[in-house]
């Protein structure tokens, strides 16, 4: 069985940034496993611009953003395998994968970085009545067909869901000659970025119907039309508000789900709110040496934040590998410290150190990370979270146990945009025996 210091599952933006960062932090034995025929993940089909404003201070398209990281991976000589599917990972970090060249094979990893991304919620999850005709696609599938394979999924389109992919596809289908009749959104607000509403819908006169959903799909072989209805505050359709739109295509942009079958299989604890692993300050899961980053951890709005988070995961995995490896070396050289002495210095006794729990409440749906071990913290820690509703003129607050330490005014926070809060080690060290940090939205 081949050994690697770090095996990274997924060669999209998260996997690439994690690999680059791990290498830059001194680990040479790294392998990226990617199931597609090229690196870059979903960025390859996101041909629109707007990527990289934070990372590169310029607006790139998806493929260009991916290329910057792919080039770094190649320049650094990081190993990767394409067309390779990871089947299973054992709790001792034996990675079982397969491809056409190697067949089924096992790898032993000192550390694993989970970077599998997410997939789209499909029709089956929505309870829309009607037949199952051709012409119903998830927005991302349509995006791949149009942008990479050169096929048009249809001519007259209705889009359900105003997530960013749905908005981007409204514009893309229009430019390719389709008629996008309407975008319907169940919630009273859009789940997408403002600039996408303006530049993808308003620019092309495509109406956005908030608090609307699809209540019927007409057509047996092919979609012939859909019926939209307005919904009440409990998201129930209001009788009498039905409106029929003839169309041959229905695109669904109704949410993304982190792809954690492998993680669950190996015993990684999953946060029911994010559907991603529960992680500590090092982005390490409950399984020692198993880290997670990017959309498999929680769904991000901007790829720049994925890269940033993945770089942290790569750095932390590298630190973990060095700790474990140095510990082993020291046993070979008897004049040095023993393993135990060494590890005692580097990894304080788990029982001895109390973890600080991050508690999301009052409008904050979740936080990443979920726990903090102060001894493992860098000087700065970015806590990312999402809110459950639109709040205007509010405060984002952090309570260290009972005491309010952070109280930051925000003009608006919305579920579509990821929020962050920076904590410093210095700040936390001022509160010995700290047990919880509660993060909440407070109305002004």
């Amino acid at each position, binding site marked *: 069985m081949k050994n690697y210091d770090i095996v990274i599952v997924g060669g999209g933006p998260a996997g690439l940034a994690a690999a680059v960062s791990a290498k830059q932090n001194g680990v040479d034995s790294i392998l990226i496993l990617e199931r597609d025929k090229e690196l870059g993940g979903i960025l*390859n089909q996101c*041909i629109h611009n707007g990527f990289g404003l934070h990372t590169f201070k310029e607006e790139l398209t998806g493929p260009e953003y991916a*290329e910057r990281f792919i080039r770094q991976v190649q320049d650094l000589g990081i190993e990767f395998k394409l067309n390779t599917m990871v089947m299973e990972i054992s709790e001792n970090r034996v990675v079982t994968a397969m491809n056409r060249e190697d067949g089924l094979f096992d790898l032993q990893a000192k550390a694993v970085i989970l970077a599998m991304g997410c997939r789209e919620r499909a029709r089956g999850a929505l309870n829309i009545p009607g037949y199952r005709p051709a012409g119903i696609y998830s927005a991302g599938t349509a995006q791949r067909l149009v*942008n990479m*394979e050169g096929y048009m999924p249809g001519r007259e389109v209705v889009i359900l869901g105003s997530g960013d992919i749905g908005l981007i596809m409204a514009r893309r289908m229009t430019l390719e000659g389709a008629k996008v009749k309407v975008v319907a959104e169940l919630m009273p607000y859009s789940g997408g970025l403002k600039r996408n509403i*303006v530049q993808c819908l308003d*620019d092309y006169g495509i109406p956005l119907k908030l608090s609307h959903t699809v209540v019927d799909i007409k057509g047996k072989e092919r979609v012939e039309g859909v019926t939209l209805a307005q919904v009440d505050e409990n998201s129930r359709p209001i009788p009498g508000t039905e409106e029929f739109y003839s169309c041959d295509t229905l695109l669904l942009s109704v949410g993304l789900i982190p792809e954690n079958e492998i993680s669950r299989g190996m015993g990684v604890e999953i946060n029911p709110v994010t559907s991603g692993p529960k992680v500590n300050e090092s982005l390490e899961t409950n399984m020692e040496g198993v880290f997670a980053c990017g959309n498999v951890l929680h769904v991000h709005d901007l790829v720049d934040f994925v890269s940033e988070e993945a770089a942290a995961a790569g750095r932390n995995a590298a630190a973990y590998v060095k700790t474990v490896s140095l510990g082993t070396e020291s046993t070979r050289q008897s004049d040095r410290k023993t393993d135990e002495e060494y590890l005692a210095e580097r990894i304080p006794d788990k029982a001895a150190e109390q973890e600080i729990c991050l508690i999301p409440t009052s409008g904050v749906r979740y936080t990443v990370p979920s726990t903090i071990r102060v001894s493992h913290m860098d000087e700065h820690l970015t806590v990312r979270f999402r809110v459950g509703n639109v709040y205007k003129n509010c405060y984002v607050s952090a309570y260290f146990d009972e005491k309010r330490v952070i109280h930051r005014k925000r003009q608006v*926070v919305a579920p579509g945009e990821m929020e962050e809060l920076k904590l410093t080690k210095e700040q936390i060290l001022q509160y010995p025996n700290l047990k919880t940090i509660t993060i909440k939205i407070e109305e002004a």
Partner: protein
Amino acid sequence: MEVKNLICINCPMGCALTVEMEGNEVVKISGNTCPRGEAYGRKEVTDPTRIVTSTVKVTGGKAEMVSVKTKQDIPKGKISECIKALKDVEVQAPVYIGDVIVADIAGTGVDIVATKNIELL
């Protein structure tokens, strides 16, 4: 006097801007919370521009399509002409990021460039 309503896209606030115009002159911008909103409103009504992205066919490459963009932003009114001009364009692999696919698209003075590397098959 003409009144135009816009949504500012600079931040998640999404201020509803009202721009009052006298012919081609902006007379008043209201509804914005910060100076960025005013600048956005002015540009949007006098000289709105966009980066346009699309795809064109590739022959002999590892992929069927190559993604492209306008190298700089072009006037909003030129988008559809730009897309039409790309309709039957076909390029030969290999193609590299930054390669000019169509020069001076739709008389804008802006080139269409590739945004992805497509190697030979």
